């Protein structure tokens, strides 16, 4: 009986997640259906003959009814066949799956690495800021994060890159020469403290693990800065909201110390809001990944998707969008399930 109601709610959410994924797949699929009529001609360019245009339309399946096309598309996809890239026309065939697979690994590598740094950091900072509300620490952190969330990701990325490049170039600039010698030297010294992270992420299948970490460092730091700012502000708000609950007042009136108040009385009720905050902010991670990968030429799905959009390689765009959407839906689903599993009202029904 007790487990039942939680299990029921969880199953409901799982079902809802599947339905969402289903509808999202329809939307992404309809993308092809919405292609303008002369698309094939535009893709094939000047050399298009009526035969090649018809062949391409047949290849995309524009000559079959949409419902049939959708199910054959989904069916193939479930078997791991995402179709072939438009770029594979001349001579050899390149399947979407084989293009995406290695890049997907790279993107997941970057995302997980970032999440491992950013999530604990943001939660820690958020909780400290909430506990010491209105202290100078809180104010400084508030202003800094407000500034950071206003920055475009590529601005932060290029600033970091610029900083690293300045290690070598600063001494030679006119600006440095116009400064007094001691200042120029100390700035130069400070710059040299910064590790010389690679500003272009040269990664292939053979890159060893730690080398991969080293080369992904700069993209990861950029993403961390973006996410920490968002996540920290929301964590702070969630914790503040909870600390204003009457039962926290009660714990204080019962003579409990600050640690007991936080750990015993606040924390058990904080999981749901914190998990929601984390899941919400991992959306910024997905968006951030696309831009950061482009800036640092990191061979991931994001960069692939942007290239595919520029060349209007629709099958690849579809597959990338589906990957990102599925990841996002999955994250939200996990957050939902954790909130359900920690809710005393659901765990212990009347």
């Amino acid at each position, binding site marked *: 009986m007790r487990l039942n109601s939680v299990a029921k709610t969880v199953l409901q959410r799982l079902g809802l997640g599947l339905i969402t994924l289903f509808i999202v797949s329809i939307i992404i699929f309809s993308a092809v259906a919405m292609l303008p009529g002369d698309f094939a001609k535009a893709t094939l360019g000047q050399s298009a003959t009526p035969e090649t245009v018809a062949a391409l339309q047949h290849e995309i399946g524009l000559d079959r009814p949409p419902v049939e096309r959708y199910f054959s598309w989904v069916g193939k996809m479930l078997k791991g066949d995402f179709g072939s890239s438009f770029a594979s026309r001349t001579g050899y065939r390149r399947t979407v799956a084989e293009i995406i697979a290695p890049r997907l690994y790279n993107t997941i590598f970057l995302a997980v690495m970032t999440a491992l740094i950013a999530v604990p950091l943001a939660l820690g900072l958020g909780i400290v800021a909430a506990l010491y509300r209105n202290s100078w620490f809180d104010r400084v952190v508030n202003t800094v994060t407000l500034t950071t969330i206003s920055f475009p990701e590529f601005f932060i990325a290029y600033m970091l890159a610029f900083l690293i490049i300045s290690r070598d170039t600063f001494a030679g600039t006119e600006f440095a020469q116009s400064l007094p010698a001691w200042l120029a030297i100390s700035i130069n010294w400070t710059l040299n403290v910064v590790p010389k992270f690679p500003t272009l992420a040269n990664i292939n299948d053979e890159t060893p693990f730690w080398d991969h970490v080293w080369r992904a460092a700069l993209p990861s730091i950029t993403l961390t800065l973006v996410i920490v700012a968002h996540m920290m502000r929301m964590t702070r708000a969630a914790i503040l909201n909870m600390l204003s609950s009457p039962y926290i007042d009660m*714990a204080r009136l*019962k*003579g409990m*110390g600050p640690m007991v108040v936080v750990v015993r009385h606040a924390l058990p009720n904080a999981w749901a809001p914190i998990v929601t905050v984390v899941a919400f902010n991992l959306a910024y991670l997905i968006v951030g990944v696309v831009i950061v990968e482009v800036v640092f030429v990191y061979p991931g799905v994001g960069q692939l998707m942007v290239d595919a959009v520029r060349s209007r390689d629709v099958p690849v765009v579809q597959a990338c969008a589906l990957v990102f959407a599925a990841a996002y839906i999955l994250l939200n689903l996990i957050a939902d399930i954790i909130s359900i599993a920690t809710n005393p009202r659901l765990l212990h029904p009347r």
Partner: protein
Amino acid sequence: MKSSNVIARERGTDLLTVRDLHVEGFSDERWHPIVRGVNVSLKRGEVLGLIGESGAGKSTIGLAAMGYAKPGCRITQGSVVFDGADLLSMSEARRRRLRGSRIAYVAQSAAAWFNPAHRLLDQTVETAVAHGIASRGEANRDAVELYKRLQLPEPETIGFRYPHQVSGGQLQRAMTAMAMVCRPDLIVFDEPTTALDVTTQVEVLASIRRIVEDFNTAAIYVTHDLAVVAQMADRIMVLRHGQTVEEAVTRQMLAAPTQEYTRTLWAVRKLVKPEIEARDHLLTIDNVTAAYAGRVKVLVDVSIKVPRGRTVALVGESGSGKSTLARVVTGLLPAISGSISFDGQPLPLSLKQRPKDLLRRIQMIYQSPDSALNPRQTVEDIIARPLEFYLGLKGEQRDRRIGELMHMIEMDESFLDRLPGELSGGQKQRICIARAVAANPDLIICDEVTSALDQIVQEEILKLLMRLQRELGVSYIFITHDISTVRAIADKVVVMHQGKVVEQGSKTEVLTTPHAAYTELLLSSVPEMDPDWLTQLLARRKNRGILDAAG
């Protein structure tokens, strides 16, 4: 502890002495005084009642007695000496040792003040274990003992439940057990029964009073309800605007208050309207059944007649369906079955089917004037709209009528360009009345219109409504849970319980010789000003219980 208690009482020293207490609260970017120089002294085992209207600062004083100020408040001046040590100047660690163990707190709405993530038992014994007063096992046994004394059902197992799994009255008693577990010298009760229905309130009051007497605990009992404080307190202090009005032993305070303000507080209870027989009926509700979409029925087979130009009081506790009945009459919630006739004509059940003129003839006034007035419309906009909408009044005619209405509700025309946020609670309710009257209605439904107001303002509003009835001949359906309000305004009384009409009849009939058992329970549960009321009621009920069991 007991022996030191006795010694202290013999010496006559105070357990708690509050001197010249000043507390400020922060709002609108400014610090405002909430408490202004209050002195309190309390002996061991004594119960002090703090009474006053909203904004009197009584809860703030209760918390300050624990050396605590809510977030957004600060204690700016004074001393709070508990058992010889000043709570305000001692270290936070020392204060923390006293809180929970020697001074405890019981809050108004236990549902919000219990942590939803822990079992009742864990929360009950937490202080005893944390302050090293008892081992976990001893504390658990003691908690069960306290649950028993507080007459909680299934005392052995109720502690294993979570707060959301027990009822409001039970939670309130569990919170008292939580406060008692360290056998504190002082407990601050902050309106512990205000959120409860009257029949539940009696039980909780009885439990609290017995346990406080048993353990000879001193208490500060904060409430706005005179009759309740008369049962609980040895001594009463009347507060207003953060200052003491007067203070005396309970019986003396009830019998002979010295201050004008106190007398006005006492006087409210005595307003009684002579009952008038009805000639014919304006509204007839026949076998009406109603339900919210897909849920259980909230009204079952309700039949009520509303006499023309008279007042029908609809009485019942929360969940009795009395507000739902109002929604059915207005057409917001069309009845599933049954019929309603209005002035001899059948009334369409749904709001959408009623013509404009029918809508005009039935008006409604709500409990909370704050949410019943659009904060972005001026008083003039609010009153003028029904005049323009129903009666098509324009220009000078409209302005003259607005002037008349303002005069009717005893407010002058300088208020017309104000926004509701700039008015007091009583003034806002007057505007709501004017808006209803502006439509020239035959029937006004008043849904708990005085519950959100302070007692003195309540009286003024009731008098105004009665005067309007005399002058305009309008009928009222008056929904309330408060029996003294029923005495003040009703001609006819309808008692509701769990969606059904339990009893209806003329006011004297229902109030003096109730037929239904529920009516009797309800009426007998309403606290009276007599300090012996609770004792006598419990004795009566006990005898009755014995008789019932014997019979």
